[in-house]
């Protein structure tokens, strides 16, 4: 008898045991600790927290370990955990101007209050494999300078002071949350930004890149990119004032894009905005490019490029949704396939039964 009707349950259990074994690998190699992942694979942790929409380095490290380094799988683990947590409300808007800056660069001004701070960056490293890292490495203590006290206005704020860039007043009312209400179109900018912040880095990178190559060009300048720690405050009803919850590390990108204007408004620069957890300039910059591209209709620009298509971008940016649906093709489809086989056999039989001289081959009736 050939039909395997039973055995699925045992097969699944065994597959999971094998997975645990493969995850651990060679038992003679020391097991990786969450601290090691958090410290030495910090940017992977940042990405998992960002796209997992949950700021928790320990859980993100655990997810990376459990996922064997598959970051999308780790993001999925974190999301599935996050969705079980109660939601108390929205924090006060972050004041990124008051950030404890670890890195801050502007491509639009040579110098500006607060200065250019390179911080820890791959930029300007020569991408030569460093074989000294193959062994235990001795690392020098870094050079440091005392943090400058005070609040450093962002380039966008400086431009806004002179009326050179559009206003960016926060919208009235509560901000939306697409994890609590289904997204509908057209979506407001708060929901678009939330979607992009959770969106897949690779997807946004490709879309942002496409705008640079002419598919929805926005003439961007990296007004400022900053990375550092900001305090999160939550308005406590009981206390009647905002209480600090702690600090988180974020990367913010403010793109300055080509101006618009109209008969009754002087031309001014426009904005694209990116904000992600941890240090990820690539993601923050791509997000800012796509945010700006998605504002095409609002700003009265020509639309039609993929990055300007809100429904296309927002519906396909989530890698947890995307990987689930792509990979669901692994699930059995034999019932539907059987239906297709049946129809195909019927059509083929009809085709072969036809008189070759009198019958035209299959035509495309749609044309």
């Amino acid at each position, binding site marked *: 008898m050939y039909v395997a009707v039973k055995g699925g*349950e045992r097969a699944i259990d065994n597959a999971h045991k094998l997975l645990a074994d493969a995850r651990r690998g060679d038992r003679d190699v020391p097991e990786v600790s969450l601290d090691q992942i958090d410290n030495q694979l910090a940017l992977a942790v940042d990405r998992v927290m960002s796209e997992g929409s949950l700021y928790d380095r320990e859980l993100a490290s655990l997810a990376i370990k459990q996922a064997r380094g598959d970051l999308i799988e780790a993001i999925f683990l974190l999301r599935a955990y996050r969705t079980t947590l109660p939601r108390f409300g929205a924090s006060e808007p972050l004041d990124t101007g008051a950030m404890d800056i670890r890195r801050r660069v502007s491509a639009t001004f040579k110098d500006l209050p607060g200065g250019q701070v390179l911080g820890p960056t791959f930029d300007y490293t020569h991408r030569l494999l460093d074989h000294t890292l193959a062994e235990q490495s001795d690392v020098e203590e870094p050079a440091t300078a005392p943090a400058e006290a005070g609040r450093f206005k962002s380039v966008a704020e400086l431009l806004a002071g002179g009326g050179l860039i559009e206003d960016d007043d926060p919208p009235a009312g509560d901000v939306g949350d697409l994890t609590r209400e289904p997204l509908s179109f057209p979506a407001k900018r708060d929901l678009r930004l939330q979607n992009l912040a959770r969106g897949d880095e690779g997807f946004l990178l490709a879309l942002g890149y496409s705008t640079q190559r002419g598919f929805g060009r926005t003439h961007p300048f990296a007004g400022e990119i900053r990375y550092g720690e900001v305090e999160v405050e939550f308005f406590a009803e009981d206390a009647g004032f905002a209480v600090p919850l702690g600090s988180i590390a974020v990367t913010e990108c403010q793109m300055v894009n080509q101006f618009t204007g109209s008969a009754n408004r002087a031309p001014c620069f426009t904005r694209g905005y990116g904000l992600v957890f941890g240090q990820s300039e690539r993601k923050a910059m791509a997000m800012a490019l796509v945010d700006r591209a998605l504002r095409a209709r609002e700003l009265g620009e020509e639309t039609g490029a993929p990055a300007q298509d809100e429904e296309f971008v927002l519906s396909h940016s989530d890698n947890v949704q995307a990987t689930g649906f792509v990979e669901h093709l692994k699930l059995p489809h034999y019932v539907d396939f059987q239906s297709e086989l049946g129809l195909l056999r019927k*059509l083929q039989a009809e085709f072969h039964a036809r008189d070759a001289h009198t019958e035209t081959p299959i035509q495309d*009736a749609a044309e």
Partner: protein
Amino acid sequence: MSAPVYNFAYLDEQTKRMIRRAILKAIAIPGYQVPFASREMPMPYGWGTGGVQITASILGPDDKLKVIDQGSDDTTNAVSIRKFFVKTAGVETTTKTNEATVIQTRHRIPEQALTEDQVLVYQVPIPEPLRFLEPRETETRRMHALSEYGLMHVKLYEDIARHGHIATTYAYPVEVGGRYVMDPSPIPKFDNPKLSDSPALQLFGAGREKRIYAIPPYTHVKSLDFEDHPFEPYRHDAQCELCGAMNSYLDEVITDDAGSRMFVCSDTDFCEDRRAAGHHGPQGGPAAAATKEESAHG
């Protein structure tokens, strides 16, 4: 880090309320796709998260759950979802169609007629029947609102013009209660007649697409067709090799490299019941039911 403690059937009660409201709305407007705030479940999108959320929201401690995929209780994903509810809700499970109060399914409707005491929960990948004709949600919602279904009829007509037949063999579109055109999920069109006037409540959940819709009991469901090309359910003209059934939907199984094949019931519970009742096909002696292979087919 403390181990998380989950609520009965995993979802918290507020989420269940939200989903139940969506379900009630769906029942009130048969065939209409109700948006809902679908949660991230601990299984992947596209693997039944919509059905799982509906089941989690309607399940009570006294329910008896059956989960099938491709008609079978023992396909890997059906096993996984059943285990999920055993673990998180501790409900009793069954493979017997007639014993279940809630049946979650992917791609099939059980052969045995359902009753008023049962709820059938479908897993839906793409809830929008017009999606492959019009990719934009903003457009398709407008088309539904205006009952603008001409495009679908043109598609079916073009199939006939090109192939001589309507070339849709599964997820065959239906009209529910004379109003909304609905995707019945990727069930083979063989199952479409069972959608109509069923005593059981039928609920459809699409987690990734965040939609719930329903066919209330005893609602007329019509498979779209033309007067001169009436709807025809397809069934391979063979009998089940195991139980000899001539009226059930059949899976085709390739048995050797030379392309030999056999046909067996897709609904495993139906097939086992028939064999237990003494029916048998060419390869299925009465004893066959007891010697099922322990074969990993995941």
